[in-house]
Protein backbone atom coordinates (compact mmCIF):
# COMPACT_ATOMS: atom_id res chain seq x y z
CA UNK A 1 0.00 0.00 0.00
CA UNK A 2 1.68 3.16 -1.25
CA UNK A 3 0.01 5.32 1.34
CA UNK A 4 1.47 3.32 4.16
CA UNK A 5 4.96 3.51 2.74
CA UNK A 6 4.64 7.27 2.69
CA UNK A 7 3.77 7.35 6.36
CA UNK A 8 6.46 5.89 8.57
CA UNK A 9 5.05 4.18 11.61
CA UNK A 10 1.66 3.36 10.14
CA UNK A 11 1.15 -0.36 10.56
CA UNK A 12 -0.18 -2.85 8.05
CA UNK A 13 -3.48 -3.55 9.80
CA UNK A 14 -4.58 -6.13 7.23
CA UNK A 15 -1.37 -8.14 7.70
CA UNK A 16 -1.66 -7.94 11.49
CA UNK A 17 -5.20 -9.32 11.33
CA UNK A 18 -3.62 -12.65 10.38
CA UNK A 19 -2.30 -12.81 13.97
CA UNK A 20 -5.82 -12.64 15.40
CA UNK A 21 -7.97 -15.78 15.04
CA UNK A 22 -11.21 -13.81 15.39
CA UNK A 23 -10.76 -12.39 11.90
CA UNK A 24 -10.84 -15.93 10.45
CA UNK A 25 -14.47 -16.11 11.49
CA UNK A 26 -17.06 -14.79 9.04
CA UNK A 27 -19.87 -12.87 10.68
CA UNK A 28 -23.53 -13.21 9.64
CA UNK A 29 -22.83 -10.75 6.84
CA UNK A 30 -20.37 -13.27 5.40
CA UNK A 31 -17.42 -10.95 5.95
CA UNK A 32 -14.98 -10.90 8.84
CA UNK A 33 -15.79 -8.34 11.50
CA UNK A 34 -14.74 -4.73 11.11
CA UNK A 35 -13.89 -4.54 14.79
CA UNK A 36 -14.18 -0.94 15.92
CA UNK A 37 -14.79 -1.50 19.62
CA UNK A 38 -11.27 -1.97 20.99
CA UNK A 39 -11.73 0.90 23.45
CA UNK A 40 -14.19 -1.40 25.17
CA UNK A 41 -12.06 -4.52 24.89
CA UNK A 42 -9.45 -5.56 22.35
CA UNK A 43 -9.21 -8.76 20.35
CA UNK A 44 -6.46 -11.25 21.21
CA UNK A 45 -3.50 -12.30 19.07
CA UNK A 46 -2.57 -15.96 18.82
CA UNK A 47 0.58 -15.29 20.88
CA UNK A 48 -1.54 -14.25 23.86
CA UNK A 49 -4.02 -17.10 23.51
CA UNK A 50 -1.16 -19.57 23.26
CA UNK A 51 0.67 -18.12 26.25
CA UNK A 52 -2.46 -18.66 28.35
CA UNK A 53 -3.00 -22.18 26.99
CA UNK A 54 0.68 -23.11 27.34
CA UNK A 55 0.76 -21.91 30.95
CA UNK A 56 -2.27 -24.01 31.80
CA UNK A 57 -1.06 -26.89 29.63
CA UNK A 58 2.59 -27.21 30.61
CA UNK A 59 3.68 -24.72 33.26
CA UNK A 60 0.88 -24.53 35.74
CA UNK A 61 0.98 -24.73 39.52
CA UNK A 62 0.28 -22.19 42.21
CA UNK A 63 2.72 -19.32 42.55
CA UNK A 64 4.88 -18.31 45.53
CA UNK A 65 4.44 -21.65 47.26
CA UNK A 66 5.83 -24.70 45.57
CA UNK A 67 9.31 -26.10 45.93
CA UNK A 68 8.88 -28.13 42.74
CA UNK A 69 9.66 -27.43 39.12
CA UNK A 70 6.11 -26.64 37.91
CA UNK A 71 5.61 -24.05 40.62
CA UNK A 72 8.93 -22.45 39.87
CA UNK A 73 7.87 -22.33 36.19
CA UNK A 74 4.55 -20.68 37.04
CA UNK A 75 6.35 -18.22 39.31
CA UNK A 76 8.75 -17.29 36.54
CA UNK A 77 5.87 -16.60 34.16
CA UNK A 78 3.85 -14.64 36.67
CA UNK A 79 6.73 -12.53 37.96
CA UNK A 80 8.21 -12.30 34.45
CA UNK A 81 4.97 -10.70 33.26
CA UNK A 82 5.15 -8.24 36.14
CA UNK A 83 8.66 -7.21 35.15
CA UNK A 84 7.74 -6.93 31.46
CA UNK A 85 4.72 -4.76 32.21
CA UNK A 86 6.68 -2.58 34.65
CA UNK A 87 9.32 -1.91 31.99
CA UNK A 88 6.60 -1.30 29.38
CA UNK A 89 5.08 1.57 31.37
CA UNK A 90 8.33 2.98 32.71
CA UNK A 91 7.75 1.96 36.31
CA UNK A 92 10.90 2.44 38.40
CA UNK A 93 10.54 -1.07 39.82
CA UNK A 94 8.36 -4.14 39.26
CA UNK A 95 7.98 -4.24 43.04
CA UNK A 96 5.65 -1.25 42.71
CA UNK A 97 3.33 -3.03 40.27
CA UNK A 98 0.35 -4.85 41.75
CA UNK A 99 -1.64 -7.32 39.68
CA UNK A 100 -5.39 -6.81 40.02
CA UNK A 101 -8.36 -7.81 37.86
CA UNK A 102 -8.67 -4.57 35.93
CA UNK A 103 -8.35 -0.78 36.17
CA UNK A 104 -11.60 -0.65 38.12
CA UNK A 105 -10.13 -2.84 40.85
CA UNK A 106 -6.91 -0.83 40.79
CA UNK A 107 -8.81 2.39 41.46
CA UNK A 108 -10.93 0.75 44.13
CA UNK A 109 -7.76 -0.51 45.82
CA UNK A 110 -6.49 3.07 46.10
CA UNK A 111 -9.89 4.38 47.19
CA UNK A 112 -10.27 1.81 49.96
CA UNK A 113 -6.69 1.50 51.14
CA UNK A 114 -5.07 4.90 50.59
CA UNK A 115 -8.31 6.87 50.63
CA UNK A 116 -9.81 5.63 53.86
CA UNK A 117 -6.46 5.98 55.60
CA UNK A 118 -5.60 9.45 54.40
CA UNK A 119 -8.88 11.30 53.93
CA UNK A 120 -11.30 12.71 56.46
CA UNK A 121 -14.09 15.26 56.82
CA UNK A 122 -13.40 18.48 54.97
CA UNK A 123 -10.74 17.01 52.68
CA UNK A 124 -11.19 17.60 48.96
CA UNK A 125 -11.05 14.96 46.22
CA UNK A 126 -10.83 16.28 42.68
CA UNK A 127 -11.99 14.21 39.73
CA UNK A 128 -13.33 15.39 36.35
CA UNK A 129 -16.60 15.42 34.40
CA UNK A 130 -14.84 13.35 31.75
CA UNK A 131 -14.27 10.20 33.77
CA UNK A 132 -15.38 6.66 33.15
CA UNK A 133 -17.63 5.53 36.00
CA UNK A 134 -14.67 3.45 37.25
CA UNK A 135 -12.82 6.67 38.12
CA UNK A 136 -15.88 8.37 39.52
CA UNK A 137 -18.08 6.02 41.55
CA UNK A 138 -15.21 4.84 43.86
CA UNK A 139 -14.55 8.50 44.77
CA UNK A 140 -18.24 9.12 45.44
CA UNK A 141 -18.16 6.12 47.77
CA UNK A 142 -14.95 7.30 49.41
CA UNK A 143 -16.39 10.77 49.98
CA UNK A 144 -19.51 9.28 51.51
CA UNK A 145 -17.45 7.02 53.79
CA UNK A 146 -14.93 9.62 54.99
CA UNK A 147 -16.86 12.89 54.91
CA UNK A 148 -14.51 14.23 52.24
CA UNK A 149 -15.86 16.50 49.49
CA UNK A 150 -15.76 15.46 45.85
CA UNK A 151 -15.57 18.01 43.04
CA UNK A 152 -15.24 17.63 39.29
CA UNK A 153 -13.10 19.63 36.91
CA UNK A 154 -15.32 20.91 34.10
CA UNK A 155 -14.90 20.07 30.45
CA UNK A 156 -15.04 22.55 27.61
CA UNK A 157 -17.46 22.42 24.67
CA UNK A 158 -14.84 20.73 22.50
CA UNK A 159 -14.12 18.09 25.12
CA UNK A 160 -10.97 19.31 26.82
CA UNK A 161 -10.44 19.58 30.55
CA UNK A 162 -10.92 23.21 31.55
CA UNK A 163 -7.49 23.99 33.00
CA UNK A 164 -8.64 27.35 34.42
CA UNK A 165 -11.34 25.50 36.33
CA UNK A 166 -8.73 22.97 37.46
CA UNK A 167 -6.46 25.78 38.65
CA UNK A 168 -9.17 27.42 40.74
CA UNK A 169 -10.13 24.12 42.34
CA UNK A 170 -6.48 23.23 43.03
CA UNK A 171 -6.20 26.47 44.97
CA UNK A 172 -8.41 24.87 47.61
CA UNK A 173 -5.78 22.22 48.27
CA UNK A 174 -7.26 18.84 47.26
CA UNK A 175 -5.66 15.76 48.80
CA UNK A 176 -6.18 13.71 45.63
CA UNK A 177 -6.55 14.46 41.93
CA UNK A 178 -7.87 11.50 39.91
CA UNK A 179 -8.22 11.78 36.13
CA UNK A 180 -7.81 9.82 32.94
CA UNK A 181 -5.08 10.16 30.35
CA UNK A 182 -7.55 9.44 27.54
CA UNK A 183 -11.32 9.86 27.75
CA UNK A 184 -13.08 6.68 26.66
CA UNK A 185 -16.21 8.64 25.73
CA UNK A 186 -14.63 11.59 23.89
CA UNK A 187 -11.16 10.44 22.88
CA UNK A 188 -9.49 13.47 24.45
CA UNK A 189 -5.82 13.06 25.34
CA UNK A 190 -5.21 15.07 28.50
CA UNK A 191 -1.93 16.90 29.23
CA UNK A 192 -0.98 14.54 32.05
CA UNK A 193 2.46 15.90 32.90
CA UNK A 194 1.15 19.47 33.09
CA UNK A 195 -1.88 18.57 35.21
CA UNK A 196 0.29 16.41 37.47
CA UNK A 197 2.78 19.21 37.99
CA UNK A 198 -0.05 21.62 38.90
CA UNK A 199 -1.62 19.06 41.24
CA UNK A 200 1.69 18.35 42.97
CA UNK A 201 2.30 22.06 43.46
CA UNK A 202 -1.06 22.14 45.22
CA UNK A 203 0.07 19.24 47.42
CA UNK A 204 -2.21 16.57 45.94
CA UNK A 205 -1.53 12.92 45.26
CA UNK A 206 -2.26 12.10 41.59
CA UNK A 207 -4.00 8.98 40.31
CA UNK A 208 -4.04 8.42 36.56
CA UNK A 209 -6.60 6.18 34.90
CA UNK A 210 -4.48 4.90 32.03
CA UNK A 211 -6.87 2.18 30.83
CA UNK A 212 -7.35 3.97 27.48
CA UNK A 213 -3.77 5.17 27.03
CA UNK A 214 -1.37 2.35 27.89
CA UNK A 215 -2.75 0.12 25.07
CA UNK A 216 -2.48 2.86 22.45
CA UNK A 217 0.52 5.14 23.02
CA UNK A 218 3.88 5.24 24.75
CA UNK A 219 3.30 5.77 28.47
CA UNK A 220 6.27 6.51 30.69
CA UNK A 221 5.47 6.85 34.37
CA UNK A 222 8.78 8.52 35.11
CA UNK A 223 8.03 11.26 32.56
CA UNK A 224 4.41 11.74 33.62
CA UNK A 225 5.23 12.06 37.31
CA UNK A 226 1.95 10.57 38.59
CA UNK A 227 1.70 8.75 41.94
CA UNK A 228 -0.74 5.97 41.01
CA UNK A 229 -1.57 4.50 37.60
CA UNK A 230 -4.37 2.05 36.79
CA UNK A 231 -4.60 -0.14 33.68
CA UNK A 232 -6.54 -3.11 32.30
CA UNK A 233 -4.94 -6.02 30.43
CA UNK A 234 -7.96 -6.83 28.28
CA UNK A 235 -7.80 -3.51 26.44
CA UNK A 236 -4.16 -4.06 25.42
CA UNK A 237 -4.48 -7.43 23.66
CA UNK A 238 -4.23 -9.32 26.95
CA UNK A 239 -6.74 -11.60 28.67
CA UNK A 240 -9.64 -10.34 30.74
CA UNK A 241 -9.30 -10.71 34.50
CA UNK A 242 -5.82 -9.20 34.72
CA UNK A 243 -4.83 -5.59 35.15
CA UNK A 244 -2.43 -3.59 37.25
CA UNK A 245 -2.01 -0.80 39.72
CA UNK A 246 1.31 0.96 39.82
CA UNK A 247 2.01 3.11 42.87
CA UNK A 248 4.97 4.93 44.38
CA UNK A 249 6.79 2.64 46.77
CA UNK A 250 6.55 4.96 49.78
CA UNK A 251 2.80 5.35 49.28
CA UNK A 252 2.26 1.61 48.86
CA UNK A 253 4.44 0.80 51.87
CA UNK A 254 2.35 3.09 54.07
CA UNK A 255 -0.99 1.72 52.87
CA UNK A 256 -2.91 -1.04 54.65
CA UNK A 257 -3.92 -4.08 52.58
CA UNK A 258 -7.14 -3.87 50.56
CA UNK A 259 -8.02 -7.56 50.81
CA UNK A 260 -6.52 -9.94 53.30
CA UNK A 261 -5.89 -13.66 53.39
CA UNK A 262 -3.26 -15.99 52.05
CA UNK A 263 0.00 -15.04 50.36
CA UNK A 264 -0.11 -11.41 51.48
CA UNK A 265 1.35 -12.20 54.90
CA UNK A 266 4.76 -12.99 56.36
CA UNK A 267 3.62 -14.29 59.72
CA UNK A 268 0.20 -15.12 61.09
CA UNK A 269 -0.60 -16.02 64.67
CA UNK A 270 -4.02 -16.27 66.20
CA UNK A 271 -3.40 -12.85 67.71
CA UNK A 272 -2.35 -10.99 64.60
CA UNK A 273 -0.58 -10.81 61.27
CA UNK A 274 2.43 -9.18 59.69
CA UNK A 275 1.92 -8.06 56.11
CA UNK A 276 4.07 -9.20 53.27
CA UNK A 277 6.07 -6.63 51.31
CA UNK A 278 4.63 -4.82 48.30
CA UNK A 279 3.41 -5.80 45.79
CA UNK A 280 2.38 -9.11 47.40
CA UNK A 281 0.80 -7.31 50.37
CA UNK A 282 -1.94 -6.36 47.90
CA UNK A 283 -2.29 -9.73 46.18
CA UNK A 284 -4.31 -11.87 48.56
CA UNK A 285 -5.14 -15.38 47.43
CA UNK A 286 -4.20 -17.23 44.27
CA UNK A 287 -3.92 -14.66 41.47
CA UNK A 288 -4.75 -14.90 37.75
CA UNK A 289 -1.53 -16.72 36.88
CA UNK A 290 -2.12 -17.76 33.28
CA UNK A 291 -3.81 -14.44 32.54
CA UNK A 292 -0.72 -12.64 33.81
CA UNK A 293 1.38 -14.77 31.46
CA UNK A 294 -0.99 -13.82 28.65
CA UNK A 295 -0.61 -10.15 29.51
CA UNK A 296 3.16 -10.61 29.43
CA UNK A 297 2.80 -11.99 25.90
CA UNK A 298 0.65 -9.00 24.94
CA UNK A 299 3.38 -6.66 26.15
CA UNK A 300 5.93 -8.53 24.04
CA UNK A 301 3.62 -8.29 21.00
CA UNK A 302 3.07 -4.54 21.45
CA UNK A 303 6.76 -3.88 22.05
CA UNK A 304 7.59 -5.67 18.82
CA UNK A 305 5.23 -3.32 16.98
CA UNK A 306 6.58 -0.33 18.90
CA UNK A 307 4.19 1.92 20.81
CA UNK A 308 5.32 4.96 18.84
CA UNK A 309 4.14 3.12 15.71
CA UNK A 310 0.89 2.02 17.35
CA UNK A 311 0.14 5.65 18.18
CA UNK A 312 1.11 6.83 14.67
CA UNK A 313 -1.10 4.15 13.14
CA UNK A 314 -4.11 5.11 15.23
CA UNK A 315 -3.53 8.80 14.64
CA UNK A 316 -3.52 8.15 10.89
CA UNK A 317 -6.78 6.20 11.11
CA UNK A 318 -8.30 8.85 13.36
CA UNK A 319 -7.45 11.64 10.90
CA UNK A 320 -8.93 9.72 7.97
CA UNK A 321 -12.07 8.74 9.85
CA UNK A 322 -12.57 12.21 11.35
CA UNK A 323 -12.41 13.72 7.86
CA UNK A 324 -14.67 11.05 6.32
CA UNK A 325 -17.32 11.48 9.02
CA UNK A 326 -17.11 15.24 8.64
CA UNK A 327 -18.31 14.91 5.06
CA UNK A 328 -21.52 13.16 6.03
CA UNK A 329 -24.56 15.40 6.57
CA UNK A 330 -26.10 15.16 10.01
CA UNK A 331 -23.03 13.75 11.76
CA UNK A 332 -21.78 15.48 14.90
CA UNK A 333 -18.33 14.45 16.09
CA UNK A 334 -17.37 14.92 19.75
CA UNK A 335 -14.03 15.79 21.29
CA UNK A 336 -11.06 17.86 20.12
CA UNK A 337 -10.48 18.08 16.36
CA UNK A 338 -6.70 18.39 16.78
CA UNK A 339 -5.30 14.87 16.16
CA UNK A 340 -2.50 15.56 18.63
CA UNK A 341 -5.13 15.80 21.36
CA UNK A 342 -7.39 13.00 20.19
CA UNK A 343 -6.77 9.28 20.65
CA UNK A 344 -7.80 6.63 18.11
CA UNK A 345 -11.53 6.73 18.67
CA UNK A 346 -14.42 8.85 17.48
CA UNK A 347 -17.62 9.38 19.44
CA UNK A 348 -20.39 10.69 17.21
CA UNK A 349 -24.12 11.08 16.75
CA UNK A 350 -26.23 11.01 13.60
CA UNK A 351 -29.20 13.33 13.51
CA UNK A 352 -32.52 11.50 13.64
CA UNK A 353 -31.08 8.06 14.43
CA UNK A 354 -30.51 6.71 17.90
CA UNK A 355 -27.01 5.23 18.43
CA UNK A 356 -28.54 1.87 19.35
CA UNK A 357 -30.34 1.69 16.04
CA UNK A 358 -27.18 2.72 14.23
CA UNK A 359 -25.17 -0.01 15.93
CA UNK A 360 -27.81 -2.59 15.05
CA UNK A 361 -27.74 -1.64 11.36
CA UNK A 362 -23.92 -1.66 11.48
CA UNK A 363 -24.01 -5.13 13.03
CA UNK A 364 -25.93 -6.39 10.03
CA UNK A 365 -22.91 -5.42 7.96
CA UNK A 366 -20.38 -6.93 10.33
CA UNK A 367 -19.27 -3.56 11.67
CA UNK A 368 -18.87 -3.70 15.47
CA UNK A 369 -19.10 -0.37 17.28
CA UNK A 370 -20.18 0.68 20.74
CA UNK A 371 -23.43 2.56 21.21
CA UNK A 372 -24.49 3.89 24.57
CA UNK A 373 -23.21 6.08 27.37
CA UNK A 374 -19.79 4.38 27.49
CA UNK A 375 -19.94 4.19 31.30
CA UNK A 376 -19.55 7.97 31.29
CA UNK A 377 -23.08 9.25 31.86
CA UNK A 378 -21.92 12.67 33.13
CA UNK A 379 -20.25 13.21 29.74
CA UNK A 380 -23.53 12.44 27.95
CA UNK A 381 -25.32 14.85 30.29
CA UNK A 382 -22.69 17.52 29.64
CA UNK A 383 -23.47 17.43 25.92
CA UNK A 384 -27.19 16.76 26.40
CA UNK A 385 -27.06 13.47 24.53
CA UNK A 386 -28.71 10.21 25.60
CA UNK A 387 -25.90 8.22 24.02
CA UNK A 388 -23.32 8.27 21.25
CA UNK A 389 -21.89 5.81 18.78
CA UNK A 390 -18.18 5.18 19.21
CA UNK A 391 -15.76 3.73 16.67
CA UNK A 392 -12.36 2.93 18.16
CA UNK A 393 -9.23 1.82 16.36
CA UNK A 394 -6.37 -0.51 17.13
CA UNK A 395 -3.44 -2.21 15.45
CA UNK A 396 -5.59 -4.60 13.38
CA UNK A 397 -7.71 -1.85 11.81
CA UNK A 398 -6.99 -0.16 8.51
CA UNK A 399 -8.62 2.10 5.92
CA UNK A 400 -10.87 -0.74 4.81
CA UNK A 401 -12.52 -0.66 8.25
CA UNK A 402 -13.10 3.07 7.91
CA UNK A 403 -14.66 2.57 4.48
CA UNK A 404 -16.95 -0.06 5.97
CA UNK A 405 -17.85 2.34 8.79
CA UNK A 406 -18.75 5.08 6.30
CA UNK A 407 -20.77 2.63 4.16
CA UNK A 408 -22.64 1.50 7.27
CA UNK A 409 -23.49 5.10 8.19
CA UNK A 410 -24.78 5.72 4.65
CA UNK A 411 -26.86 2.54 4.83
CA UNK A 412 -28.34 3.72 8.13
CA UNK A 413 -29.25 7.07 6.58
CA UNK A 414 -30.92 5.34 3.66
CA UNK A 415 -32.92 3.09 5.97
CA UNK A 416 -34.05 5.85 8.29
CA UNK A 417 -34.42 8.48 5.58
CA UNK A 418 -32.02 11.38 5.54
CA UNK A 419 -32.57 13.67 8.49
Amino acid sequence: MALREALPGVLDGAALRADFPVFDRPMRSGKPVAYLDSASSSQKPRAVIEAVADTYGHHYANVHRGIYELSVDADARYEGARTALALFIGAPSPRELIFVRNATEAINLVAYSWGRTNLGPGDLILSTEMEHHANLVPWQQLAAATGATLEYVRITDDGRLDLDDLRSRLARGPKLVAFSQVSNALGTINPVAEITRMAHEAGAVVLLDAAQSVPHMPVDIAALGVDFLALSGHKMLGPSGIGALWGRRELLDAMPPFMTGGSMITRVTLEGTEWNEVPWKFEAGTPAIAEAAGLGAAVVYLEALGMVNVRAHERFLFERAWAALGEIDGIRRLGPSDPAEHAGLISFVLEGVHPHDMATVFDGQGVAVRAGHHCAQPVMLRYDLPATTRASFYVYNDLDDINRLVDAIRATQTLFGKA
Partner: protein
Amino acid sequence: MDNLYRDFILEHYRNPHNQGVLDPHDLQFADSNPTCGDEMSMTLRLDEGKERVTEVAFDGRGCAISQASASILTDELPGKTVQELRDLDPRGVVENLGVPIGPARLKCALLSYKVLQGAVMGSEARWPEEADVLIDAYEGGTSP
Protein backbone atom coordinates in the same frame (compact mmCIF):
# COMPACT_ATOMS: atom_id res chain seq x y z
CA MET B 1 -30.53 -7.07 10.91
CA ASP B 2 -32.26 -4.64 8.61
CA ASN B 3 -35.45 -6.66 8.90
CA LEU B 4 -35.66 -5.33 12.45
CA TYR B 5 -36.47 -1.97 10.89
CA ARG B 6 -39.54 -2.79 8.88
CA ASP B 7 -41.65 0.14 7.73
CA PHE B 8 -44.12 -0.67 10.50
CA ILE B 9 -41.47 -0.04 13.16
CA LEU B 10 -40.04 3.02 11.46
CA GLU B 11 -43.52 4.50 11.04
CA HIS B 12 -44.18 4.19 14.77
CA TYR B 13 -40.73 5.69 15.44
CA ARG B 14 -41.31 8.70 13.20
CA ASN B 15 -44.92 9.25 14.27
CA PRO B 16 -45.38 7.67 17.67
CA HIS B 17 -48.89 7.25 19.02
CA ASN B 18 -49.83 8.49 22.49
CA GLN B 19 -46.76 10.62 22.99
CA GLY B 20 -46.78 13.29 25.66
CA VAL B 21 -47.61 13.78 29.33
CA LEU B 22 -51.12 13.61 30.81
CA ASP B 23 -51.69 16.21 33.48
CA PRO B 24 -53.48 15.47 35.72
CA HIS B 25 -53.04 11.69 35.79
CA ASP B 26 -53.76 8.81 38.14
CA LEU B 27 -50.66 6.72 37.57
CA GLN B 28 -47.17 7.73 36.59
CA PHE B 29 -43.71 6.17 36.38
CA ALA B 30 -40.34 6.87 34.78
CA ASP B 31 -37.43 4.54 34.27
CA SER B 32 -34.36 4.10 32.12
CA ASN B 33 -32.75 1.43 30.01
CA PRO B 34 -29.64 0.37 31.91
CA THR B 35 -27.75 -0.49 28.73
CA CYS B 36 -28.01 2.94 27.13
CA GLY B 37 -29.48 5.31 29.68
CA ASP B 38 -32.54 6.12 27.57
CA GLU B 39 -35.33 7.45 29.75
CA MET B 40 -39.05 6.97 29.37
CA SER B 41 -42.03 8.12 31.42
CA MET B 42 -45.66 7.05 31.25
CA THR B 43 -48.80 8.74 32.59
CA LEU B 44 -52.22 7.07 32.77
CA ARG B 45 -55.74 8.26 33.51
CA LEU B 46 -58.32 5.89 34.99
CA ASP B 47 -62.11 5.90 34.87
CA GLU B 48 -64.24 7.15 37.77
CA GLY B 49 -64.07 3.82 39.56
CA LYS B 50 -60.25 3.98 39.25
CA GLU B 51 -60.40 0.57 37.65
CA ARG B 52 -59.93 0.93 33.91
CA VAL B 53 -57.48 2.90 31.81
CA THR B 54 -59.09 5.71 29.83
CA GLU B 55 -56.01 7.44 28.48
CA VAL B 56 -52.28 6.86 28.40
CA ALA B 57 -49.26 8.76 27.17
CA PHE B 58 -45.53 8.11 27.12
CA ASP B 59 -42.66 10.56 26.92
CA GLY B 60 -38.91 10.42 26.53
CA ARG B 61 -36.35 9.89 23.84
CA GLY B 62 -34.90 6.66 22.69
CA CYS B 63 -34.17 4.30 19.87
CA ALA B 64 -36.61 3.16 17.19
CA ILE B 65 -37.25 -0.11 19.01
CA SER B 66 -38.10 1.42 22.39
CA GLN B 67 -40.22 4.18 20.84
CA ALA B 68 -42.13 1.83 18.52
CA SER B 69 -42.64 -0.61 21.38
CA ALA B 70 -44.11 2.16 23.57
CA SER B 71 -46.29 3.42 20.71
CA ILE B 72 -47.69 -0.07 20.03
CA LEU B 73 -48.10 -0.99 23.68
CA THR B 74 -49.90 2.21 24.68
CA ASP B 75 -52.37 1.76 21.79
CA GLU B 76 -53.57 -1.40 23.51
CA LEU B 77 -54.04 -0.06 27.02
CA PRO B 78 -57.28 1.98 27.03
CA GLY B 79 -60.12 -0.16 28.35
CA LYS B 80 -57.86 -2.53 30.25
CA THR B 81 -58.15 -2.86 34.03
CA VAL B 82 -55.23 -2.06 36.30
CA GLN B 83 -55.11 -5.74 37.22
CA GLU B 84 -54.84 -6.65 33.54
CA LEU B 85 -51.89 -4.30 33.24
CA ARG B 86 -50.19 -6.00 36.19
CA ASP B 87 -50.73 -9.37 34.53
CA LEU B 88 -49.49 -8.28 31.12
CA ASP B 89 -47.11 -10.81 29.58
CA PRO B 90 -43.79 -9.28 28.49
CA ARG B 91 -43.55 -11.92 25.76
CA GLY B 92 -46.67 -10.48 24.19
CA VAL B 93 -45.11 -7.02 24.16
CA VAL B 94 -42.12 -8.37 22.25
CA GLU B 95 -44.27 -10.43 19.87
CA ASN B 96 -46.44 -7.42 19.06
CA LEU B 97 -43.43 -5.71 17.54
CA GLY B 98 -43.61 -8.32 14.80
CA VAL B 99 -39.86 -8.29 14.20
CA PRO B 100 -37.11 -10.55 15.55
CA ILE B 101 -35.65 -9.08 18.75
CA GLY B 102 -32.28 -10.48 19.78
CA PRO B 103 -30.71 -10.35 23.23
CA ALA B 104 -28.84 -7.13 22.42
CA ARG B 105 -32.05 -5.18 21.93
CA LEU B 106 -34.44 -6.90 24.32
CA LYS B 107 -34.24 -4.17 26.96
CA CYS B 108 -35.08 -1.57 24.28
CA ALA B 109 -38.18 -3.60 23.37
CA LEU B 110 -39.19 -4.01 27.00
CA LEU B 111 -38.53 -0.51 28.36
CA SER B 112 -42.16 0.55 27.85
CA TYR B 113 -43.34 -2.65 29.57
CA LYS B 114 -41.00 -1.97 32.51
CA VAL B 115 -42.25 1.62 32.86
CA LEU B 116 -45.87 0.46 32.70
CA GLN B 117 -45.17 -2.13 35.39
CA GLY B 118 -43.70 0.64 37.52
CA ALA B 119 -46.86 2.69 37.05
CA VAL B 120 -49.09 -0.11 38.33
CA MET B 121 -46.74 -1.79 40.81
CA GLY B 122 -44.38 0.98 41.93
CA SER B 123 -40.76 0.26 42.65
CA GLU B 124 -41.50 -3.45 43.01
CA ALA B 125 -41.52 -3.73 39.23
CA ARG B 126 -38.60 -5.73 37.85
CA TRP B 127 -37.15 -6.38 34.44
CA PRO B 128 -38.56 -9.70 33.24
CA GLU B 129 -36.21 -12.66 33.04
CA GLU B 130 -34.53 -12.22 29.68
CA ALA B 131 -34.14 -15.92 29.06
CA ASP B 132 -37.87 -16.59 29.39
CA VAL B 133 -38.79 -13.80 27.02
CA LEU B 134 -36.15 -14.70 24.47
CA ILE B 135 -36.96 -18.39 24.35
CA ASP B 136 -40.50 -17.56 23.32
CA ALA B 137 -39.48 -14.76 20.99
CA TYR B 138 -37.22 -17.18 19.13
CA GLU B 139 -39.81 -19.90 18.75
CA GLY B 140 -40.89 -20.48 15.20
CA GLY B 141 -37.29 -20.40 14.02
CA THR B 142 -37.07 -16.66 13.45
CA SER B 143 -33.44 -15.78 13.69
CA PRO B 144 -32.54 -12.11 14.11
